């Protein structure tokens, strides 16, 4: 297994965090959060990947054929479900903010400080 997927993971995660930190627009910020999460998909799939292995369906292939790890794929799928819930909720908040206050800037939405 090469180190390359993990370099990509670190890069995607860092890019997403940089976006969250610098963003002045809620929708953009939420998309950056999705980018951070995307790094976990790559990580999970990278962990279970085997060069030259097949997809883990043992229907018409011999049982000892090398296959990629199906557990991490299940984890990634669960991860996608979690992301869908969180993202939908966050975007609903953004819609509310825009409807009520006409702004999507986190700083203009601020009520509490200190």
């Amino acid at each position, binding site marked *: 297994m090469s180190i390359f997927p993990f370099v990509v*993971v670190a890069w995607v*995660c860092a890019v997403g*965090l940089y976006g*969250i*930190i*610098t*963003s002045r627009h*809620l929708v953009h*910020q*939420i998309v950056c*959060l999705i980018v*951070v*999460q995307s*790094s*976990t998909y790559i*990580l*999970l799939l990278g*962990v279970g990947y085997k060069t030259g292995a097949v997809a883990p369906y043992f229907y018409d292939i011999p049982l000892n054929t090398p296959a990629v790890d199906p*557990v*991490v794929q299940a*984890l990634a799928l*669960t*991860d996608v479900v*979690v992301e869908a*819930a*969180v993202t939908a*909720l*966050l975007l*609903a*908040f*953004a819609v*509310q*903010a825009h409807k*009520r*206050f006409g702004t999507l800037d*986190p*700083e203009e*939405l*601020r*009520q*509490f*400080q*200190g």
Partner: protein
Amino acid sequence: MDSLLPLAVAVPLVAAAGISALNPLFGHRRRVLDAVAILTAAAVTGLLVVIMLSTADGQRVYWFAGFTPSHGVALGIDFAVDQLNSGLATLTATLVTAALVFSWRYFERVSTYYHALMLVFLAGMVGFCLTGDIFNLFVFFELMGVAAYALTAYRPEERGPLQGALNFAITNSVGAYLSLSGIGLIYGRTGALNMAQIGQAITGHRPDGLVVVAFVLILMGLLTKASIVPFHFWLADAHAVAPTPVCVLFSGVMVELGLYGIARVYWSMFGAGLGHRDAITAVLLALGIATAVVGALFCFRQRHLKRLLAFSTINHAGLFLIGIALLTPLGLTGAAVYVIGHGLIKAALFLSVGIVLHRLGSVNETFLHGRGRGLPVTGVVFVLAALALADLPPFALYLGAGWIGQSGDARELHWITAVIMTTSVLVGAAVLRVAGGVFYGLGDPPSEDPQMAEEASEETSETDEAKSRTPLSMIVPPAVLVAAALAVGLLPQLGDLVQDGAVRFQDQAAYNATVLVGAHIAHPTALLGPEDTSVTTTDVVTGVGTAVASLVLALMALYWRRLPVLRRGFEPGAGLVRPIRRFQSGVVNDYVTWMVVGLACIGGALAFAIR
């Protein structure tokens, strides 16, 4: 017996689904919804008490769908229940019940989603306590997270709730994704997701870089949930705006669940593999002290009652982390008892603030000065709870503080008692100042802080308008919770019982054997050995001293304008306002920046020390 375990999560989930599905039928009959929710929460509490009592003679393990381990290899997902995590789950269910009873008359109008979300929140928290699988832990972490974000923005028509919910959701999600990366890495190393299996796989090898990185990453989400400095910023924003019954759960148990997660991950997975280095104690102690100090200072300067209590929770989270960081059974015992006492008392305080908001329509200490005179019963409950928070014996909190201090002494860390006392005095004084000023009109009315007045004035639409009397269903829960904290403090043999649980919690070999081969371990042994849990005179004197000092400081805060040394017109700490505002800036961008800084510092420190 063991088949009861999944019911504690399944029952509230099914009830929540049922409430949502039957919404067209019962949506307008609010009392039906209230009653179903309260009965469900009470049933879960009863179930968890039965489960907790059944763990007295050993750990209970339940494997979903009958996937028991074969030849010591775990294939399925398990619930592994011992005294400590079942006790924490029981506390959770108790507080949810109290919060739902309080809600009976608290909300004018309430939508179905409130009850369904509260029950999902309960299921997520109980599942988080009981699970023995690290990925399952992440799923329950997210489940309770999503319910909590939605509950925070219960009133999305205002600015504050949106700010609080967004800050809460984004910081906690970033933490959760970092944790998930750690879980992926440790799975890549060990090929397991069961905590016992992972622990067994990494024990006995020299810890390599990958294990350390996975440990640090998994800690990130838990530290964020536990509101440990510098991951704590979201907490005050979320607490200030969530409906008061929800704040009870945030402060009383959700933050503590983050700390439980840290202890669980450490003692079931990484502890033996990392070799219980002193460096781990040092890093966690440093975080705990920073959290305790920051929480106490911010608490003392607050005038917004809910934010004041939120910062007090940050202070206590730091103290709990100190107890865990000592790695001794007595330290963990102290933290556990402290969590129970704090959960009950903080819940009572939040509910009292809810009554104040219900009756007087404000949570601004300046505005409320002297206006709470018409609330005699609430006043008494609040004062008792405030004194308990300042470690007054015989409320349970002084025992926790005392045992953490004793355990620190045994590890030659004598200054821990001093840290606990000083920060507790500040927090106790802040809450007692509120009690004296609001309910008895003591001292001079505090000068108006325009920023805080503006913040607190938006806090009115939770209840429609000020009411003329307090319903019984609102005053009984806080009174009962204060009485419960008193009863726990007076329980004979409490220390020995909890320390038995702590020893079992810290015996990683016994945990592995019970989960993976179904062994029954009658006499677990902890790394550092149990200590004496008798209540010493020092504990009582320290507790009384803290409470008296808090009272004195509270009176000084109320009457400081009349002190001869201070001139009129002098505002203490006026020069600090700007830096404080810049630190706790209220913008999520800054919070995530601090999280990255925290990740780099903790990761660097641990990598350097464990290498």
